[in-house]
């Protein structure tokens, strides 16, 4: 657990005395993360649970992994099964016990206690058990010991008082030798174990559970107590498969993943535009929710195809359709997945959700992701996983899945089916808070049509459009179109087309008017200019006429002055009126 790690880091150097409990890595996938390093070293751990819960396997894996991966040999004291039976049982997990025994990495001692063969005749102790254990430990230099299931001694030996005293001595003995021990115990009525083994093992108690809920079996593990260690207290699903034990979470519990700033196209240019112009963030989780038939799978396929077209690998978990069905259906809207499938860029893992329990799904997905190393992952739809477990289980499983994918930096696309009647902007799984980008597809029913709309409910870390757009599935793919807000809400489909036509008509009207008015202006201007020109010409003509008159008068006046002067010159003495009168007829 990260918190432990932190505290280790923080205090480790300065104060050695506060160093956390030494731990022996169990080698069991997931458990060491959960316990912050493994089981308490040099101490006993009680693993208890009902029949068939996996106690023996847990113990065996602890020993085998210890021997193979951590260089700690082990002794398996079996009280219920013979060495041959054990070897056969775990061979399916790839554990080769005979070879490990031959290589002196493991020692298996079958302790048979048959009540009917035993007659008690006085005082005794269990020194024989100690001797055998001691012998086995020394033979392989064991650091780890398993006692499976020591409780069977209670049914085999007649005197529980002696047994209890001896068990106490045994655990002391094991601790004194610094052996890391796993003790298994059968679940009792109202108690962890039938014989109260928890009384002897006080350091670490792990409870395993195997239950069937609604016909689906789930295995769970809970750390009941772990002295001196912060540990997860939840029930964690686990499973036993061909690789042994796996406990989930498979990834860390902390929020420590990287947040890339690179973007990934959604495969729909218009949507990319709405998502800050670039699409989803790489490594983010995208949820698209909507009622049936709103185009969730199509959006998923578009993303897959678009990622593949960019040379990225895409892993598609389909819980509703087979590969062929998916490919065929997507071709009908112009998305061809075949080439990507053939090139191996796209891998579709189709399975019925109910085929296995949730945790098995999670591990199967984990394995696929680890093997395929995709850049994009699609889970279509997550809602089907509820069929397998309860809501809470599915939620916890999805949380871990998302966490895991995020840590891997995989962009994930989840689709979620919203049942009719449930508020659209509410995911049944309650995982919306874990989602970075949430798109809601809805159906608008009006004018005898069903039309799809798309809204971005949220998109962390980017400016995104608040517009409700119409979402159309055409033969060419997905198209996003503007919607109109009508008196009865958002207009889509034919209503949108009608509105568009109406708008068009209004626009045309304005344009006509504008043209008319412009024409009128020109006309008027022209007319005025023409009038002005006419007036100017008239004026010019008038002026010429007037100027001519002025000139005539001026000339007459000039002539008169000249005549007078000539008269005066000829008469010399004549002056005034006479001269003027005579002067007119020279």
């Amino acid at each position, binding site marked *: 657990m990260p918190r432990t790690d932190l505290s280790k880091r923080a205090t480790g150097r300065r104060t050695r005395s506060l160093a956390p409990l030494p731990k022996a890595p169990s080698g069991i996938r997931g458990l060491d993360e959960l316990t912050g390093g493994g089981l308490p070293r040099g101490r006993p751990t009680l693993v208890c649970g009902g029949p068939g819960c996996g106690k023996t396997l847990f113990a065996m894996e602890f020993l085998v992994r210890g021997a193979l991966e951590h260089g700690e040999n082990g002794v398996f004291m079996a009280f219920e099964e013979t060495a041959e039976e054990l070897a056969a049982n775990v061979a399916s997990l790839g554990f080769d016990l005979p070879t490990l025994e031959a290589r002196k990495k493991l020692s298996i001692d079958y302790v048979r206690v048959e009540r009917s*063969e035993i007659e008690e005749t006085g005082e005794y102790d269990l020194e024989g058990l100690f001797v055998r254990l001691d012998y086995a430990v020394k033979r392989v230099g064991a650091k780890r010991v398993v006692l499976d299931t020591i409780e069977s001694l209670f049914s085999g030996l007649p005197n529980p008082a002696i047994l209890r005293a001896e068990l106490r001595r045994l655990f002391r003995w094991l601790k004194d030798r610094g052996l890391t021990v796993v003790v298994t115990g059968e679940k009792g009525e109202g108690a962890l174990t039938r014989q109260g083994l928890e009384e002897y093992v006080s350091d670490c108690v792990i409870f395993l559970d195997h239950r069937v809920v609604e016909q689906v079996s789930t295995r769970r593990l809970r750390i009941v107590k772990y002295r001196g260690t912060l540990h997860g207290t939840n029930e964690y699903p686990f499973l036993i498969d061909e690789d042994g034990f796996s406990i989930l979470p498979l990834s860390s519990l902390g929020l420590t993943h990287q947040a890339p700033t690179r973007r990934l196209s959604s495969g729909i240019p218009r949507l990319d535009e709405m998502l800050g112009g670039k699409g989803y963030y790489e490594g983010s989780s995208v949820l698209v929710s909507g009622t049936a038939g709103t185009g969730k799978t199509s959006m998923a396929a578009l993303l897959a195809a678009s990622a593949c077209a960019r040379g990225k690998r895409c892993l598609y978990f389909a819980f509703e359709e087979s590969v062929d069905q998916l490919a065929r259906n997507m071709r009908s809207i112009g998305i061809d997945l075949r080439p990507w499938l053939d090139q191996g860029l796209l891998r579709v893992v189709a399975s019925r959700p109910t085929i296995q329990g949730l945790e098995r799904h999670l591990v199967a997905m984990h394995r696929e992701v680890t093997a395929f190393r995709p850049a994009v992952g699609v889970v279509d739809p997550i809602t089907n996983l509820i069929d397998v477990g309860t809501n809470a289980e599915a939620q916890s499983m999805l949380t871990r899945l998302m966490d895991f994918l995020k840590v891997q930096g995989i962009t994930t696309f989840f689709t979620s089916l919203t049942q009719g009647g449930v508020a659209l902007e509410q995911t049944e799984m309650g995982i919306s808070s874990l989602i970075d980008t949430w798109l809601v597809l809805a159906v608008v029913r009006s004018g005898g049509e069903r039309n799809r709309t798309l809204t971005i409910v949220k998109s962390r870390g980017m400016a995104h459009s608040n517009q409700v757009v119409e979402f159309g599935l055409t033969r060419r793919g997905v198209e996003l179109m503007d919607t109109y807000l009508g008196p009865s809400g958002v207009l889509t489909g034919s209503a949108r087309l009608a509105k568009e036509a109406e708008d068009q008509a209004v626009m045309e009207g304005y344009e006509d008017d504008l043209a008319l008015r412009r024409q009128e202006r020109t006309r008027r201007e022209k007319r005025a200019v023409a009038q002005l020109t006419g007036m100017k010409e008239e004026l010019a003509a008038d002026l010429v006429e007037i100027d001519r008159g002025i000139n005539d008068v001026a000339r007459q006046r000039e002539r008169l002055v000249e005549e007078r002067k000539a008269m005066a010159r000829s008469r010399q003495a004549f002056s005034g009126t006479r001269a003027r009168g005579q002067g007119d007829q020279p």
Partner: protein
Amino acid sequence: MKSPPRRARAPRRRAELPPQWDLRLYVAGQTARSAIALQNLKRICETHLKGKYRIEVVDVMKNPRLAQGDQILALPTLVRKLPEPMKKIIGDLSNEERVLIGLDLREARSRR
């Protein structure tokens, strides 16, 4: 630490018939309890099986592997190897009644 005698046989029948009763007593070291158990066993055998038995004492401290072979857990343990079937009696054999039941000697004696 003195080791207990590995074998204590009924001396007189030694050369004659093989003993019908082959008993093995497992003990851990030379403890008081081991000694009591051996003492009790000898007494019971002398009383009920005179001349027909053989006792072998095994110290598991020295031979831990033998403890595994006979599935010894509690100590001391008396194992009746012969006659078959094998029987196990645990404890220091101080309860003679139960030892006799455990060895099926009650029946044997009543038949005689």
